[in-house]
């Protein structure tokens, strides 16, 4: 694919932006992407800069300047690392794990944009660090299965699961009590 700007070099940066359902695609070579970056007042065209464009989600069509719509968020600051939402919006990266909690209220729309509409994790869970979560997930699953059996009036099977649930809940309760 050739660069849509210079039509000479092959395009190496493919960027898709969807704003209010309207899709815009850009295919640029490195040089043109750099030049475009400079036009927008940036000297490096990286994923983080693309991202900071997305962070401006209240007014997607407003031009880049550093004192626009972020002013409404200035009061918020991460307790642990001291990062403000303004700073985050500027560099496109969080300062620490706690930032996710601090800015939680604003994250859903951002994450949805970046991750094709998703904002909740459904992958791997750490074995040791989130052992509780493993048990809780298992309990939830077993409860669902038990409900199924009850609805199908297979009470003997439901009873087996109920016993399993009890021992799991006991185990979980003990762990929490530690």
């Amino acid at each position, binding site marked *: *694919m*050739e660069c849509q700007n210079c039509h000479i*070099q*092959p395009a*190496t*940066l*493919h960027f*898709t932006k969807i704003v209010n359902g309207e899709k815009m*695609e850009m295919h640029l*070579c*490195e040089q043109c*992407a750099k030049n475009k970056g400079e036009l927008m007042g940036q000297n490096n*065209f*990286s*994923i*983080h800069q693309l*991202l900071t464009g997305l962070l401006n989600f209240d007014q997607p069509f407003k031009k880049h300047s550093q004192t626009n719509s972020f002013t409404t968020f200035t009061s918020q600051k991460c307790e*642990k*690392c001291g*990062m403000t939402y303004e700073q985050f919006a500027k*560099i*496109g*990266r*969080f*300062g*620490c*794990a706690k930032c*996710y*909690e601090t800015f939680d209220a604003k*994250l859903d729309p*951002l*994450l949805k944009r*970046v*991750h*094709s*509409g*998703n*904002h*909740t*994790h*459904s*992958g*791997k*869970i*750490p*074995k*040791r*660090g*989130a052992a509780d*979560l493993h048990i809780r997930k298992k309990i939830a699953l077993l409860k669902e299965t038990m409900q199924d059996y009850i609805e199908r009036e297979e009470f003997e099977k439901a009873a087996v699961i109920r016993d399993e649930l009890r021992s799991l809940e006991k185990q979980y309760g003990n762990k929490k009590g530690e």
Partner: protein
Amino acid sequence: MSLERFISKAISPWMKESGPDDDIVLSSRIRLARNLEEYTFPILTHQHDGEAVLNEVRSHVARHANDDLAKLELLLMKELEPIQKQVLVEKHLISPHLANDAPYGAVLLSEDESISIMINEEDHIRIQHLASGLRLKDVLERSNEIDDLLEETLDFAFDEKRGYLTSCPTNVGTGMRASVMMHLPALVLSQQLNRIIPAINQLGLVVRGIYGEGSEALGNLFQISNQMTLGKSEMDIVEDLYSVVTQLIERERHARETLLQKSKVQLEDRVYRSYGVLQNSRIIDSKEAANCLSDVRLGIDLSLIQGVSQTILNELMILTQPGFLQQYAGERLSPGERDIRRASIIREALKLNEQ
């Protein structure tokens, strides 16, 4: 050092293994981003924290005497020469960011260089596992094992709702980037790839050149990877990528067949011209070298050229990068000097190969 020895040391041992579909898929890679809960992310890190993170990972690894972690070698970025770092980048073992902008950066490398764990890059820990051919599921499994070993005593930043917390929101969730390096000369030659790339993008996958973000697709080599990391499980992401890659393989094979049937002489002409250039040129830039190597590799895959090893493209693509050329020369070289050196290394390597 003789060229033969230099090559054997320069090429990562994992690259020499054969793998499924390795006529088209050069390598499969999984990268997992992890952070330690206690410390600020590396963009904000000062010396004290940077060293603390490094020491924690180090002492964790030291506790493992018998498993995979025990055999890793630690390299500190501040102790390496710029050319040494560049060579590691060219071998895909560390990122340019770690080499250039990570003052407390380090990497743990396995002996066969298939595992590399970057420390204090954009995230505290980045586990990378590479294998030859199309082996995403195996690679994911191994990466998970390493992740589990690290998690035994390190407290990773994890949230029930958001998953593994990363510095950049584009990595949050699984923290996983799965990618496959493919050689697609026939799809480029028949101009089909232009139409395929937008379709791939719509599936949440990205197509890039050989050295990642922003790099040009040299030598018809393309890296296909997942864009989103949140909302799908690791296995689902890998399966999606796998199914796109297998379709691309099929199309590339079909395009090669068509080329052979419809324009065999033209194809042979192109392949042998490129072979001739590589055997005879005295000055060659990296772009021309990559294109000729791609042609020759295609010729080998289609049995038009005999007696040259299949791995020549993978090997020489890496060996003719600026860092390697300068390491072999033992001195800094200007771009003009590099083009001369590149031509001579390629000539010699082909001669070695023919013997």
